[in-house]
């Protein structure tokens, strides 16, 4: 998939830097999934209760798995969108605003056009995707045409988006109570709600775009070496703008799932998505420098973040610890994935 062997130094044959970076995320995920049940095992043991490791675990159960799945799906879509951008070596911090605008406009259109999926209100779904694409496109245009570094362009666009959502709602909450739409959450196949399968479908789509389309390969080309890509005739500006547009569409999908999950669209719908999704992408092993990683890494990263969040609740740690743990995790992940020989300095 990604060949970075040219940059890697051998750390004794088997344990190359390349291999460590590639496999660390999945190992961390497995370790976490085994670790949290162990805490439960210990605490039950101390209280003298009968507890068969893993089998009796509250964490390691299908119900909790579904809970993690539900919590993870909107963030997964957002993180997948951000993955494309980070593969290009840019970053997108606009998701909170984009999600809020998409969610709010979706809810307005949905309620205005009938309020149930069985009517013309289903058109609100493509509308939300188009809105996401437009916001992403504007974001990309500002970044590329005005030559503003992407973190700042997207941060500013995020503020504009949140402001726009606030302007549209005036601070109100919009309730989307259509049973058909809410079946995303309420109807379960094999213990998992439909939204998990929707997310899976979009994940496969993202994987297809990443690996089997010219656009996907171009993301890697831009991330691996922008000047090289430019001089081999690639229209880098166009690839970047399309990347941001694509990310906007995935943010919109995330917004729809978020609305489906809680049944409410408001300015605060987008809150917390930015940090969680960026964390998930980098923890999954997609390097901030670009060119390395992909949507499967992001799937692992999102699961790591959500397993940590969920596991801390299950073993009884206060929720406020999570923010700090995620903060430390981001720093660790970025620091570990950085090849210091290829970086001269960072701003």
């Amino acid at each position, binding site marked *: 998939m990604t060949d970075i062997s040219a940059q890697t130094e051998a750390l004794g044959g088997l344990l190359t830097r390349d291999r460590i970076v590639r496999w660390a995320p999945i190992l961390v995920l497995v370790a976490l999934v085994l670790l949290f049940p162990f805490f439960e095992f210990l605490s039950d043991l101390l209280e003298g209760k009968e507890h068969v490791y893993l089998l009796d675990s509250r964490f390691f159960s299908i119900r909790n798995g579904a809970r993690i799945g539900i919590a993870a799906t909107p963030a997964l879509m957002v993180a997948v969108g951000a993955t494309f951008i980070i593969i290009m070596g840019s970053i997108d911090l606009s998701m909170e605003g984009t999600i809020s605008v998409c969610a709010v406009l979706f809810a307005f259109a949905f309620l205005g056009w009938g309020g149930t999926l069985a009517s013309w209100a289903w058109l609100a779904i493509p509308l939300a995707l188009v809105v996401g694409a437009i916001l992403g496109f504007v974001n990309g245009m500002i970044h590329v045409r005005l030559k503003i570094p992407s973190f700042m362009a997207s941060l500013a666009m995020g*503020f504009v988006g949140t402001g726009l959502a606030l*302007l549209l709602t005036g601070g109100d909450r919009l309730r989307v109570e259509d049973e058909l739409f809410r079946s995303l959450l309420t109807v379960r196949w094999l213990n998992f709600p439909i939204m998990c399968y929707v997310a899976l479908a979009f994940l496969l789509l993202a994987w297809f775009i990443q690996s089997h389309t010219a656009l996907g390969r171009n993301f890697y080309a831009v991330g691996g070496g922008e000047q090289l890509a430019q001089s081999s005739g690639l229209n880098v500006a166009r690839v970047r703008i399309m990347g941001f547009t694509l990310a906007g569409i995935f943010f919109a999908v995330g917004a729809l799932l978020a609305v489906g999950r809680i049944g409410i669209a408001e300015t605060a719908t987008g809150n917390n998505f930015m940090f969680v999704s960026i964390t998930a992408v980098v923890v999954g092993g997609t390097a901030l420098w670009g060119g390395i990683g992909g949507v499967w890494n992001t799937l692992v990263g999102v699961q790591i973040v959500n397993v940590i969040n969920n596991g801390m609740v299950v073993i009884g740690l206060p929720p406020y610890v*999570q*923010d*700090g743990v995620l903060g430390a995790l981001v720093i660790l992940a970025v620091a570990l994935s950085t090849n210091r020989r290829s970086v001269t300095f960072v701003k």
Partner: protein
Amino acid sequence: MNLERIKPHFPWMTLLALVCVVGAANPAFFDPLGLLSLVTDVVPLFIMALGMTFAIYIGGIDLSAQQVANMVTVVATVYLSQFGIGVAVICILAGFLFGAVSGFVTTRLYVPSFVSTLAMGFVALSAAKYLSGQRALSMDVTERNTSFGWMFDSTAGVPHQLAIAIVLLAVAWFLQTRTSFGRALKAVGSGELAAVASGLNVDRVKILAFAISGAFAGIAGLVFSVKLSGGDANLANGFLLLAIVAVLVGGTPLTGGVGGVINTAIGTLIVMVIRAAMVYLEVSATQQQMVFGVVLIVAIALTIDRSKLSGVVK
């Protein structure tokens, strides 16, 4: 007329133009008492922007400023009864420490500052929630008045809050223009590789710049919590955008190296006038964030030094 030559004069001309426009639309704007209270209101924001200037001046950014200020409002409220006015030292040290860690992570662990400060911001948020027990705390009024009551007085018509801002501006200006550290900042901001090559300890300069940014964010949080007589993990939310806008419209570009703390003073006044104008022109509060987001994009686009981006804008 050369655009590059008049560029440094943009900020104060913008300020002047804005003041004239707003004043013409609403002559009540020039009421001295009203103006004074407007300026006093913007003091915590100004202090945060002053700190942010150091981070941006070296070509970085400090996205943790808002969360550090949030945390400090909690620290100040929790420890006020125990330490009295001494709580100020704790607040500044806490901010300094967080900034220093961000700087360390940026320089030694090679994590870009926008990620490292974002992450440290969440660590600060965690700390704030832990200390506050996730509740909005309020200060004991008598204790606040014995320790910090002087902040609300004024001498010869100058409110003491404003005096604090002016003193801090003077300190920051002295640091920036009259010390070797200030020259080092300029060197790092103008061209980091050249600064390394000329033997400067660039890492130390950068860590110190982030630490100063953190310390000022701490002071901003302290002043804000005293003003509102309380602390909460979300109290200072909304400051980050305005602080970045203040630095950038003041004429310190995202690429660093030019501008400085005086520019930030002008930038903060511009933000203040825009906000006041929106109130006079009856633009609702909900629209303000959008307006400032757009102002931010315009300000960056106008000030950024594209030659430094060396053809690659990531």
